[in-house]
C-alpha cells in the first residue's frame, strides 16, 4: 500500500505541469488554439511529442516510454487543470491504446513522433454509448475490405490522419460478435467529414463512409473480434477521463476558493458566510473521493479480466461523475454572475466537466454496470 509517485513520475508531473502552465496559464491563448484549423495548436502538439508525452503509454519495445495508466493519469490531470484542447485522449490514449493492444507496432512510430493523429469512430446515430451497436458494414473485396456507413460525434475526426472505425463483418446490428476494427486514412476516397466545435471547446466530426476501399492490412486485431479490444481501450479511456476530471475539479475548486476570499458583499468576503463555507467543504469532500477512485481506476485499467475490470472502472466513472456534477454546479453558484460569462474561466471548466460526465457512458449506465456485476470486490 503506497501512494507515492516514483522519482520518474514526479519529474513527469513537474514537466507536464510546467508545459500546461506555459501553454494555458493565459486563458486567452486557449481561444487562439481553438481558432486554428485543427482546433488545436500543431506547435503545442509538437511540444508534447518533444517531451515524449505522445509515446508515454507504449512499451519501450514498441518505441514508447514504458508508461502505464498511472503516467496517463498524471498527464490527464494536467490536461484537466489546463482545460487543454489537444487530442491527447483520443489520439494517444485511445488510438495509441488500440494500436498497442492490437500489436500494431508499425504505426506507433508516427504517433509517437507527432506525425500522425488518430481518432476513434464508433458512435452511430442509434448507438448512444453501446459499443456493440454497429450498423456500419465492412465486406471483403478481393484481398481487402469495403466499408459503408456513418459515424457520429467523432472527437477530432476531421483533423485525424487515421480513423479507427468499428464496422460489422458479421451478425446483426446489436450482436456482440462480428465487429471488426479498421484503420481508415482520413483522406481515403469515400470518406467525407464535417467538422464542428463542441460545447466544451473541442472539435468533433460527422463522418460518412461510402464504398471506402481498404487494403487487408487495415484490419486492426482479429476479424470479428473488435469488441473486447474496444471495451478494453474504452476502460483505459474512462480511467484517463477520471483523471482529467480530477484535474479540472481541483482547478475549479481552487478558482472558487480564490473568488470566495476576494469577493465582498455586505462589507465582508462571501467566504466568511457559513452557508458558503459548507458548500466549499462539500466540494473538497467530493474532490478527494473522486481522486481516490481515479487512483483505483488507474490500478484496474490494464486488468485483462473484464469481469474484474469493468465494474471497477464503471464504479470510478460513476463516482467521478457525481463529484464533477456537484463541483461544477456549486462552482457556478458560489461564484454567482461572473461564472455565467464566457470571459471567465469557471464556466469553461463547468462545461468541460458537464460534457465529460456523458463521455463513454453517463452515471446511470455505469451504476447499472456495477449493479449488474453484483457490486465491487474488496480492494486488497
Amino acid at each position, binding site marked *: 500500500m503506497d*501512494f507515492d509517485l516514483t522519482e520518474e513520475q514526479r519529474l513527469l508531473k513537474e514537466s507536464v505541469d510546467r508545459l500546461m502552465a506555459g501553454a494555458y496559464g493565459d486563458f486567452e491563448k486557449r481561444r487562439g488554439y481553438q481558432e486554428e484549423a485543427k482546433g488545436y495548436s500543431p506547435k503545442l502538439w509538437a511540444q508534447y511529442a518533444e517531451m515524449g508525452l505522445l509515446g508515454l503509454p507504449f512499451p519501450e519495445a514498441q518505441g514508447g516510454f514504458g508508461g502505464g495508466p498511472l503516467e496517463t493519469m498524471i498527464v490527464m490531470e494536467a490536461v484537466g487543470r489546463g482545460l487543454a484542447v489537444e487530442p491527447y485522449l483520443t489520439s494517444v490514449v485511445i488510438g495509441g491504446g488500440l494500436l498497442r493492444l492490437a500489436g500494431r507496432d508499425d504505426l506507433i512510430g508516427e504517433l509517437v513522433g507527432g506525425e500522425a493523429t488518430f481518432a476513434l469512430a464508433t458512435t452511430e446515430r442509434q448507438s448512444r454509448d453501446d459499443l456493440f451497436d454497429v450498423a456500419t458494414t465492412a465486406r471483403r473485396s478481393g484481398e481487402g475490405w469495403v466499408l459503408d456507413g456513418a459515424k457520429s460525434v467523432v472527437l477530432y475526426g476531421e483533423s485525424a490522419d487515421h480513423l479507427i472505425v468499428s464496422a460489422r463483418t458479421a451478425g446483426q446490428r446489436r450482436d456482440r460478435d462480428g465487429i471488426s476494427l479498421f484503420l481508415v486514412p482520413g483522406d481515403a476516397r469515400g470518406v467525407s467529414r464535417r467538422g464542428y466545435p463542441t460545447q466544451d471547446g473541442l472539435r468533433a466530426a460527422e463522418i460518412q463512409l461510402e464504398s471506402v476501399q481498404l487494403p487487408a492490412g487495415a484490419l486492426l486485431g482479429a476479424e470479428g473480434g473488435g469488441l473486447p479490444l474496444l471495451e478494453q481501450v474504452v476502460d483505459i479511456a474512462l480511467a484517463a477521463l477520471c483523471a482529467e476530471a480530477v484535474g479540472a475539479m481541483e482547478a475549479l475548486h481552487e478558482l472558487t476558493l480564490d473568488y470566495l476570499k476576494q469577493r465582498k458583499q455586505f462589507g465582508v468576503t462571501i467566504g466568511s458566510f457559513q452557508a458558503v463555507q459548507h458548500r466549499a467543504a462539500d466540494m*473538497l*469532500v467530493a474532490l478527494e473521493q473522486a481522486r481516490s477512485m481515479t487512483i483505483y481506476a488507474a490500478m484496474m485499467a490494464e486488468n485483462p479480466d473484464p469481469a474484474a475490470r469493468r465494474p471497477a472502472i464503471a464504479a470510478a466513472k*460513476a463516482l467521478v461523475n457525481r463529484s464533477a456534477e456537484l463541483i461544477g454546479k456549486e462552482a457556478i453558484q458560489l461564484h454567482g454572475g461572473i461564472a455565467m460569462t464566457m470571459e471567465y474561466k469557471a464556466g469553461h471548466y463547468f462545461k468541460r466537466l458537464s460534457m465529460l460526465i456523458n463521455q463513454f457512458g453517463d452515471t446511470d449506465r455505469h451504476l447499472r454496470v456495477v449493479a449488474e456485476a453484483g457490486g465491487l470486490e474488496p480492494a486488497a
Partner: protein
Amino acid sequence: MELRYTPEEIAFREELRRTFREKIPAEIRRKVSEGRHLDREDIATAHRILHAEGLATPNWPVEWGGKDWSPVQRYIYIEEVQANAVPMPLSFNVAMVGPVIANFGSEAQKQRFLPPTASLDIWWAQGFSEPGAGSDLAGLKTTAKREGDHYILNGQKTWTTLGQYADWIFVLARTNPAAEKKQKGISFILVDMKSPGVTVRPIITIDGAHEVNEVFFDEVKVPVENLIGEENKGWDYAKFLLSNERNNIARVGFSKEKLARVKERAKETPAGEGTLWDDADFRRRVAIAEIELKALEITQMRAVAAQRHRAADKPDPTSSILKIKGSEIQQMATELMVTVAGPYAVPMPSHSHNEPPVGPDWAEAAAPLFFNYRKVSIYGGSNEIQRNIIAKAFLGL
C-alpha cells in the same frame, strides 16, 4: 503506487482474522453483525479475550502493552475487528483515557491505572459533553474547585455512553473560570463513580435502548492526585484524545460488514417472482453505497500511507472528510437493511423468550440500528462542525 498489501501484511491480516473468528464467541459476533445491543457481559467478554491475546491496546506505548505496529498494520487491525463483527475493545479505555494517562499521567497514575484499564478491571466513561456544551465543548460549566488536597466537583455531564457500567469517569471540568480564553481554564480529572455525590440517570434513545446517561456531580470530593498533567491544561489533553480517534473515524470495516449482510439477506428475501436482489432499483442503491465506500476506503488508505510523511500538527482535512463520508455511508448501510427487512422492520421486538420474532430473526434489529445510527453524523464533532474545520483550517475561508 500500490493499492495491495504486502505478503507480510496479508499474513498479518490472516492471523488476526483467525484469532478473531476462533476466539470471540460466535453469539457475540452474531449480535454485532445484526446490530443488536451488547450487554455488559458481551462487551467485557470480548474485551478480555482481546486483552488475553494482546490485542486490546495495540495503540498504547509498547511498555504498557502496546504494539510496535506500522500505520498500515494499525489500519488492518481496525478493519478486521469491524469486518469480523468483533466488538471494539472499550474505546473509553483503550482509545481515550489510556493513551492520555500513558502520555500525560504521572508515573504513579500509570502504575495505578494502566494495567486495570487495559484489562477492563476498570470500566471508564467519558465525561465531556454537557447539556449546554455539545459542539461548543469548551463552553462546559462543570466546575472543579481546589480545596486543600481535593477538588470539589459540581455540574452535569450528558450523553455518557455506557456510564451505567462505569467504575471511573474522566471529566473535563473548569478549574479557572477567570481564564482569558475558555479553553485555558479546563482540567482533565479522573473520578471514581462510587464517590458520594455522583448520580447516573439513564437516557433512553429513539431505538429504545439504554446506551447513554446523564451524570450529575454534587459536591463530589476528588483527591488532587487524580488530576492528569497540569491544572488548566486539560483542553490540550482532550484534543490529543480526540485526535487518536482519527484512525477509526471512517469505520470502513463496519460499513463493509453491513453492506455484505445487506446483499446476503437481499438474496434470500422473496420479492416479486424472485428475490429482492433481482430488483434493479434496489441493486442500484447498494451499488451507490458500495462505490462511495470503495472511494472512502482508498481515501482512508491514502491517509494511512501519508502518516509516515506528515508532521502530526499540520492541518489535515482528511479526518474531517473521513468523518463526514464515513458517517453518511454507515447511515446508508443501516437504512438499506431496513429496506431489506421490509414489513418485518415494523414490529417491535418481543422481550419475552416464549414468543418468536414476527419475521426473520435479524429483521427486528434493522430499524433500531437505523434509528441509533442517526447519531454518527452528530457525535465526534457533528458533520457541520467537520465542514467548519475543513473551511477554516484547510480552505482558509
